[in-house]
């Protein structure tokens, strides 16, 4: 049954994700700059970049196929769907029946496949290099992410993210050792999936070391704007998954309209803290050699499996 308050929550949440995502990216960059004793580009820089890119004429390689042209839209749409099913403000989301946690991983995978295909489409050396590396990271990160989501699902007895979060938020304050392991695993996967240090470096100009950036080197103007925006959305969505599974306190449950008033500041606060923590991690770590990434993600997978085992042994 779809309630009106649910529709309102759904629309608000989606609009908020699309509008706030660049701000989160700006916040992380600003924190990174502060931690390096720099004054920083300002919180609104990602918005200005997106506006600037939309105003430009796109330059497209003559041999680019439809895949290259459509990939930015597909990737952006994937991130929209992901943003729609992850509960951020309220758990009463009518759209969440469309896809559960497993489908969420599939949506991320779909975006990855498209951007990788587009990278190889034009046939530049860097595009295929980046696509190859992205696939390596992807096939290691996805199982670990699935395991993390399974742990949360087992605790809440549902694979629907909205239901999971609602049950986790409603539970009596209890410590789940399994969630601690899952949380560490999730952080590692998020770093890899969002092309952050230590796996990738979003700020590098060294084309030979790039993963995500190498794939989007050929894009310009509106296509690049959508890809940048989608990258911001992805970071936002991952942050929200982490927040809603591991720190769901304050989220509005059911059809409580007043809950919004608490949920929004709580979300903003949690995102700000999360973004600052990400900046700290990125500042104190060096980028690892690319063949350390499998070890890194292997560790994440192992931790996620441990979380499942701990749940099965201790919490049932």
């Amino acid at each position, binding site marked *: 049954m779809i309630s009106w308050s649910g529709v309102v929550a759904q629309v608000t949440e989606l609009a908020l994700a699309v509008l706030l995502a660049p701000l989160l990216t700006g916040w992380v960059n600003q924190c990174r700059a502060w931690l*390096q004793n720099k004054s920083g580009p300002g919180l609104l820089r990602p918005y200005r970049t997106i506006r600037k890119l939309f105003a430009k004429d796109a330059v497209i390689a003559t041999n680019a196929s439809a895949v290259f042209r459509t990939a930015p839209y597909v990737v952006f749409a994937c991130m929209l769907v992901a943003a729609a099913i992850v509960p951020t403000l309220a758990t009463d989301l009518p759209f969440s029946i469309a896809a559960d946690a497993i489908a969420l991983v599939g949506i991320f995978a779909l975006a990855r496949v498209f951007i990788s295909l587009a990278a190889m489409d034009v046939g530049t*050396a860097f595009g295929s290099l980046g696509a190859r590396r992205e696939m390596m990271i992807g096939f290691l990160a996805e199982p670990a992410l699935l395991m993390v989501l399974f742990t949360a699902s087992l605790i809440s007895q549902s694979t629907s993210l909205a239901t999971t979060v609602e049950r986790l938020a409603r539970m009596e304050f209890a410590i789940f050792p399994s969630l601690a392991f899952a949380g560490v695993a999730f952080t590692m996967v998020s770093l890899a999936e969002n092309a952050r240090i*230590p796996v990738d470096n979003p700020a590098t100009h*060294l084309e*030979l070391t790039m993963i995500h950036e190498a794939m989007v080197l050929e894009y310009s103007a509106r296509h690049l704007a959508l890809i940048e925006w989608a990258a911001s959305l992805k970071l936002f969505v991952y942050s929200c998954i982490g927040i809603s599974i591991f720190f769901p306190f304050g989220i509005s449950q059911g059809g409580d309209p007043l809950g919004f008033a608490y949920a929004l500041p709580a979300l903003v606060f949690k995102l700000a803290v999360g973004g600052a923590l990400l900046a700290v991690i990125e*500042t104190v*770590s*060096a*980028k690892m*050699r690319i063949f350390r990434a499998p070890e890194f993600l292997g560790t994440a997978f192992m931790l996620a499996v441990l979380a499942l085992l701990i749940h099965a042994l201790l919490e049932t």
Partner: protein
Amino acid sequence: MTALPGAVPAWHALAESGRLPDLARTIADRGGRLAALWGADGRERGAGFALHAAFVVEASLAWIEVALPAERPRYADLSSTFPCADRMQRALRDLLGIEAEGAHDPRPWLRHGAWPADAHPLRRDVPADATWPNQVEPYAFVPVEGDGVHEIPVGPVHAGIIEPGHFRFSIVGEKVLRLEQRLGYVHKGIDKRFESMDVAAGARLAGRVSGDSTVASSWAYAMAAESIAGVTPPTRALWLRALALERERIANHLGDLGYLGNDGGLAFGLAQFMRLKEDVLRVNAQAFGHRYLMDLVVPGGAARDCDRAGIDAFLGQCTALERELRVLRSIYDDHAGLQDRFLTCGILSPDLAAKLGVIGLAGRASGQPWDARVAPAFEPYDRLAVAMKLARAGDVAARVTTRFEEIDESIRLIRAIVEQMPGGPVRTSLPAAPGGRGLGWVEGWRGEIIVALECSGGRIRRCHVHDPSWQNWPALEHAVIGNIVPDFPLINKSFNLSYSGADI
């Protein structure tokens, strides 16, 4: 053999072209090495062409001149004895049409199609402003064949603001099987430009061959000009030059250490080291009027003296740098992630480095004990007892450590220089219209810089500024083999060679 007067022990000798290979082998057998190779066109004086080679033999420079005929100038290949001769020979053929017979690589080096194969812009009958229609010339990179091998072309235009150079990687997966460099994109015809200048104007140009080594190049040039004029600059000027040279070394090493951290993904390192470098540059500007100390060293001495306030600023900075570097070095040394990137990355073994004739900082990090400040220890370094910092590992970590230790040594040297520097004038005038030939040999931060100068009637006949990057670029090709592609920027940065200096 005639001894050339001046600050460094140097000899000049004529050799017959037939004896060159034997001579080269004798020098190699005695532990000598090829320091520079250039040519000259003497046809308008009734002579033919000439091949010039500078060898370092037992802490002195031997300048060997080989007369070649005006028609079909040929000499026997030197690269079989000294591998680093290969690119210098190719450049010589492009610029002057002097060919090395039996050389294994016939491809052009500096000529990218801006002039045709039968034109040679450094010949004296070609006007300096001559132009030719630009043509695209295919360049045959060495192909690597095998299952799954493919090529990545990188550059000459890069995503960052760096000098242009093309790198062709043959890789399988992420592993580099072969790297081939193609440089020459910043060929400016500096040797030709020198020929239209007098000795004083040449000093400014010599200081701009590679901007990061301006003190070293202009000192080497001044040394050569003073050797020709038979002038010894005032002692205080020599000490001032050493002060400037050590400050140039510190500034560049600081910048490199920052970028090495950044290329390892630790942007914190870049921010910190760039802050320190900026402090060094500002004090330079305050004391000498130029951040990078350009045009400070002039033939006959130094362009300006440094007052007490400047000296105090240098000393204060030594203390501050020492304190900050101790902390930063422990951060670099203790950072597991960064050390994982640095250690065993881009190894250049001492054996290979010796074979390739690698010099300077990169050489010392691979156990090659070459430092012109130690031998021949030109004045004032003969009174400073420079401690050479050697490492044997030859990896990125060794080149990082060598930089840290060389900064420490430079700080010690600056203190010693300030303490012992005598008073007095800083400049003497050079007598007008000198003629003859002179050599300069200075250890810059990257390695030794050699300037060979020939003048007549106060004008430059031929001037060649040799940057150590000529010797060290080929070593990078070897250091990368077997490493993974994303480690290349780090390895490249750990060498930090000059494009401009070697593309002249």
